[in-house]
């Protein structure tokens, strides 16, 4: 896959092979914490460790978390919109897509959320994240590749966001 910064418009991803295309398409679903209590708790973490702040924590759950959920959902919707424009060449099988400058923050967020949810859902440990390259015999090899791909892409998008 090649990533090119385009003047003013954002970035362009070209020569996206079928595996990378599939990993890109999986970002929104991977970022969904539904069905995993651990992932839910990580995405909506407690705002205080103080046991004397129970009311604050309750108010947070009631008023703040729904707003955060909307914020997270809007980022994933932007990603889904960009993914609908992913075009695959019928002959080469390689894909092309663009990400506008004002969508980069959403992608950085979505990729981060996906990595956090995958980590909790699959109970990955810190040493799992640092293992490079992953053991070929490990049944989670594809998962590690997914995590690495998302981290690399997030790093590139962050680099573009921050400019020279």
């Amino acid at each position, binding site marked *: 896959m090649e990533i090119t910064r385009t003047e003013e418009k954002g970035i362009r991803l070209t020569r996206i092979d079928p595996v990378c295309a599939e990993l890109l398409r999986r970002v929104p679903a991977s970022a969904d914490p539904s069905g995993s209590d651990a992932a839910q708790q990580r995405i909506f*973490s407690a*705002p205080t460790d103080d046991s004397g702040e129970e009311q604050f924590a309750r108010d947070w759950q009631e008023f*703040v978390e729904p707003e955060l959920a909307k914020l997270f959902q809007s980022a994933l919707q932007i990603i889904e919109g960009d993914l609908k424009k992913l075009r695959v060449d019928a002959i080469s099988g390689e894909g092309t897509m663009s990400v506008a400058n004002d969508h980069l923050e959403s992608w950085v967020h979505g990729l981060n959320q996906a990595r956090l949810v995958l980590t909790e859902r699959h109970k990955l440990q810190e040493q799992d994240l640092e293992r490079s390259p992953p053991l070929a015999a490990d049944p989670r090899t594809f998962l590690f590749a997914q995590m690495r791909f998302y981290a690399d892409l997030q790093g590139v998008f962050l680099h573009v966001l921050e400019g020279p």
Partner: protein
Amino acid sequence: MTETVVEQETKSSSAVDAPWNVVVHNDPVNLTTYVTHVFQKVFGYSRTRAQKHMLEVHHRGRSIVWTGARERAEAYVEQLHGYLLLATLEKSE
């Protein structure tokens, strides 16, 4: 009677005005570059200051990234949660 009311108000006011810390906790998943980026975005810190806090989180497990009034501290914690950082509010000692 009037004096008691004034005293209570003063006490309540000082409790709210007492400084509060915004603490960010370590998370092995968040990229160091991402954490630095978030500190710059949320607090307007220079890259150097943001990196200092990021490194403190990374090596010590936590960093007090801001201290001040409760209401503003809550708003910062909310923003940091919006970026999926592990952030909490705690009374400053």
